[in-house]
């Protein structure tokens, strides 16, 4: 299997704060890797760094064989990286429809066709498509964020807690959709989740972060929930 996204020996953070500490992580073609860890352990930071939204102090990021360490975020999006952020994930003062259109900023041609698929997945969005995204409920926003990212027709997906805020039935739908996209288009996915059971059911490999470092990297079959909980107890990043 070829490596699609490789973070090697990354040190990165926000302003003067270092969060990721000499972290390496690889996503291979056709793979779903789930990143788990306690709150504040740096999971979101891994995804943001892959997307180019943090300050990288050392290390390299390779995307499809190309060094993108210094490529700005919009360049990575053009290169096929799709990202669903954990927070601030919609354009609050634009309508749902405009949000979706922004998702397809790089793919204006296929928008009409693809947006119907998103509506089929999340009928609620179709009902509320004229509403301002900032007025949506928490779960509706999450749907919008996921839908917008799918419209980008990415070749690699970074998902930050896609199931949180969602109703159980919708969580199932989202996981089905992820599995479907993955299978149908064989898109590799880096998935951050707190819903450990679901994540493990979907992923091929688990990576656990403890305080910005990788504490475990193993195929799903080799980990048990008990070990994971022990790692979670270890807590978040010490930044002070």
């Amino acid at each position, binding site marked *: 299997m070829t490596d699609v996204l490789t973070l090697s020996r990354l040190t990165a953070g926000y302003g003067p704060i270092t969060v990721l500490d000499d972290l390496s992580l690889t996503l291979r073609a056709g793979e779903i890797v789930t990143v788990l860890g306690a*709150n504040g352990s740096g999971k979101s930071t891994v995804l943001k760094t892959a997307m180019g939204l943090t300050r990288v102090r050392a290390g390299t990021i390779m995307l499809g064989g190309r060094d993108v360490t210094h490529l700005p975020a919009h360049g990575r999006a053009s290169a096929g990286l799709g990202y669903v952020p954990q927070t601030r994930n919609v354009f609050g003062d634009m309508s749902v429809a405009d949000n979706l259109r922004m998702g397809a900023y790089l793919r204006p041609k296929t928008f009409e066709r693809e947006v119907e698929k998103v509506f089929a997945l999340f009928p609620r969005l179709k009902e509320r498509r004229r509403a301002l995204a900032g007025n949506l409920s928490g779960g509706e926003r999450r749907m919008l964020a996921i839908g917008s990212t799918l419209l980008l027709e990415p070749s690699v997906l970074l998902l930050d807690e896609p199931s949180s805020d969602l109703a159980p039935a919708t969580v199932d739908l989202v996981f089905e959709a992820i599995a479907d996209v993955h299978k149908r288009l064989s898109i590799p996915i880096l998935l951050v989740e707190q819903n450990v059971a679901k994540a493990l059911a979907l992923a091929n490999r688990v990576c656990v972060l403890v305080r910005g470092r990788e504490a475990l990297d193993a195929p799903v079959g080799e980990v048990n929930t008990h070990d994971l909980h022990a790692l979670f107890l270890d807590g978040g990043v010490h930044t002070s």
Partner: protein
Amino acid sequence: MLRVRDVSVSFGGFRALNAVSLEAPPASITGIIGPNGSGKSTLLNVVAGVYVPDSGAVTLNGHPLAYGRPEQVAAAGVGRTFQVPRLAHKLTVFQNMMAGARDQAGEGVFNLFLRPGAVARCEKEIASRAEAMLKRLGLAHKANDYAGSLSGGQQKLLTMGMLLMADPAVLLLDEPAAGVNPVLIEQQAALLHELKAEGRIVLLIEHNMEMIANVCDRVFVLDAGELIASGTPAQIRADERVVRSYLGMPA
């Protein structure tokens, strides 16, 4: 007893809540569940005094709560958290916690200059409470960090901490477990049981059904702004309408 009677809310032409009634007795945990956009957060905002309902009433122990005046509702002992955490990002975690406490002597300008002793005593008392609470939430090591630098889950915990500092009689919690790791969720559940034992009223919005089942005495289910069911968690799980609209296929 917290009572919500026939509350309706609409935004422009959009009806977010339609004649919803529920009650939450003291020393109990009352769950609210429902599909996304069914109006749960809206209901909570009505109770908290943020939104003014088109019709209906909210009473606490028989006294009506003020609409549109969240500070009065909060002062009446009703505390809440937000689905998206709200914090003073450029104050430290510790300062945020300190600010949570109510009725501080040092918040009166006259006390500040005329009764410095009382102010200092009050600060000390609150500080020790804040320290204890931070330890309990596992945030002690973050006490001197800016609240804005916490991760999403940590921020959720901190808002919970601030709420507890206020020692409210009623707690309105909007998805406290979303984004929180499984270990902390267990701790939170334990915390909720303690709060219940202390005789408080807890209103809990959650999508985490495990948590709902673990802690709730009674659950109300909303769908498209309407109350479609209520009962114990077990009854709810068995309700066909709820399964269809909310739970989906049994996982």
